[in-house]
């Protein structure tokens, strides 16, 4: 029951964050630039053209009325029209978002399946060479710029060794319509197209690695700290006294509670992960939302920019809600206590 109340509280929190986010975005896009219509048309447009676009965009209404309109549009999933593609921003983002979602989910998975074992190994052999090695990896992954790593991987695996594709989600000639979830990895299995699955995974590997590095280092470090923390608890001492084997103690008794801090970190780090996706998608010509966002930004397409920032925020909030749920599943104490920290 307490857990339900906790989740409800978190959902309220999420709505509040989204509301705040809408205010921030509205301020950046409508209040700061002065005249969005002039910005969209450029300096060579005539005063009449600007006035017409102002009228069409509803920019003559008072600021609060514009905000109400923006907000009610948001609640109906309407982000306005893109000045560049002349389409609804919602449609544009819906088209590009699955590619980003697929990349980000694979990145998270990759960061966890590499980061957690590294952290466990470092904690198990604390102050010995595996610990030092993991520490070096964690620092290295934290300081390498994501775009630099992306370029490096592209050269090494793509050009020098020529073992992995360096651009896009699928080979140029391959036809496949991801019409169920939009995620190639899942849809290809549902359609029984395992050739597509293989290609999709091959294309995912380099961008996901470039994006995962920073998060992986953080997760390894936090897992190590929390494993060491748990191993000092009385019940682990008791388990040792009862002669329960090392392996069982490590994986069954320590790892499960030690899993909570890395999950929490992932929630916090998620915003910077999306930021990293902006750079990585561009380098690997990944047809995702971030690439769309960068194009919108360089073309000063305000509605598209607002849409992309808003969707990034919604994505962040959703991932954090899922993490709250997962933490409740992993650590039953949370379900009773009703907080995750």
């Amino acid at each position, binding site marked *: 029951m307490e857990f339900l109340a906790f989740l409800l509280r978190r959902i309220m929190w999420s709505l509040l964050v989204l509301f705040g986010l809408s205010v921030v975005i509205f301020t950046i896009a409508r209040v700061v630039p002065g005249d969005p219509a002039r910005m969209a048309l450029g300096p060579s447009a005539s005063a009449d053209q600007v006035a017409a676009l102002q009228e069409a965009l509803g920019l003559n209404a008072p600021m609060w009325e514009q905000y109400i309109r923006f907000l009610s549009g948001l609640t109906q999933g309407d982000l306005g029209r893109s000045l560049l593609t002349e389409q609804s921003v919602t449609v544009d983002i819906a088209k590009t978002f699955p590619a980003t979602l697929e990349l980000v989910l694979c990145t998270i998975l990759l960061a966890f399946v590499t980061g957690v074992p590294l952290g466990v190994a470092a904690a198990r052999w604390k102050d010995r060479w595996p610990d030092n090695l993991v520490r070096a990896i964690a620092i290295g992954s934290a300081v390498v710029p994501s775009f630099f790593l992306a370029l490096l991987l592209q050269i090494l695996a793509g050009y020098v060794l020529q073992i992995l594709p360096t651009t896009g989600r699928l080979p140029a000639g391959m036809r496949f319509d991801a019409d169920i979830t939009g995620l190639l990895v899942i849809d290809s299995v549902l359609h029984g197209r395992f050739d597509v699955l293989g290609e999709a995974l091959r294309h995912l590997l380099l961008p996901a690695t470039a994006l995962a590095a920073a998060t992986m280092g953080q997760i390894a470090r936090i897992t190590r700290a929390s494993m060491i923390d748990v191993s000092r608890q009385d019940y682990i001492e008791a388990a040792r006294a009862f002669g329960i084997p090392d392996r069982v103690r490590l994986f069954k008794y320590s790892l499960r509670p030690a899993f909570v801090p890395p999950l929490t970190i992932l929630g916090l780090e998620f915003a910077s992960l999306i*930021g990293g996706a*902006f750079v990585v998608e561009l380098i690997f010509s990944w047809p995702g939302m971030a690439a769309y966002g960068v194009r919108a930004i360089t073309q000063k397409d305000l509605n598209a920019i607002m849409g992309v920032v808003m969707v990034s925020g919604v994505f962040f909030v959703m991932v954090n809600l899922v993490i709250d749920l997962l933490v409740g599943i992993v650590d039953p104490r949370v379900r009773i206590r009703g907080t995750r920290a």
Partner: protein
Amino acid sequence: MSEPVVPQEALSNAWQNWYRFSRNPTAVIGALIVILCVSMAILAPYITPYPEHVGSFVDFRNRHQPPSALHWFGTDNVGRDILTRVIYGLRVSLILAVVVLGIAIPVGTILGLMAGYYGGWTEIIIMRITDIALAIPPLVMALAVAAVLSPSLINSMLAISALWWTWHTRLIYSITRQLRSQEFVEAAETLGASKAHILFREILPNCVSAIAVKTSLDAGFVILIGAALSFLGLGIQPPTPDLGTMVADGASYLPDFWWESMLPGSAILFLALGFNLLGDGLRDLFDVEDVR
């Protein structure tokens, strides 16, 4: 004239700290890298081999020269010496870090102290605002601001600072909350100390080591974000040398002229590594495990 009075205890304390610092290889290597980069950035006009290559200098006969004794880092697509531009590029990265942290740390610290100490509505309002700011990727925010205003170093710095204080607020908030009910704070309250005294003279000194670690680690991250921003073409504008811009420009000549992007990229890595090692070493030194 009497000699200045140095309390024996304080002296030995400083010595002790220095000794512990010098025995920590991570911290020392980090500090050396940071000192090296900072002094190169400051002395750039005097130590660079070709100071005239900083601006929009062009020498097409010498374009795409590989690293050699004349040009240690090679030359770029218009024949400018890359080492010179890398050293100048350090300036931009360091200024970015100094300004962003110079805004974020005081703001974040004061808000964190207030939220942690006063509690109630102050806490609710401040912490809810940090929650909102955490949901926005700093890089995306900086990109959006650069697009709406104009791409410039100042705009990027403002955009990143506008979000960065939240991390410091969260850190100071959690420390302050733990300290609020400790005896020395309660004693100061009982003695009728002013709020300002309690916040800045009783609680703040206990946050200093955490702030030092966080600042050092943060400097590395801010530099990485700034580099990513200019890699995307929305940071400081050419011809001012900037490491991220150089990587982006050189990337079109990969893999043949690898030095044009790989060496400036390594410079960013080196600088960020220095701050991270320093922060990591300080964390061990001050024993503040939970500061990231």
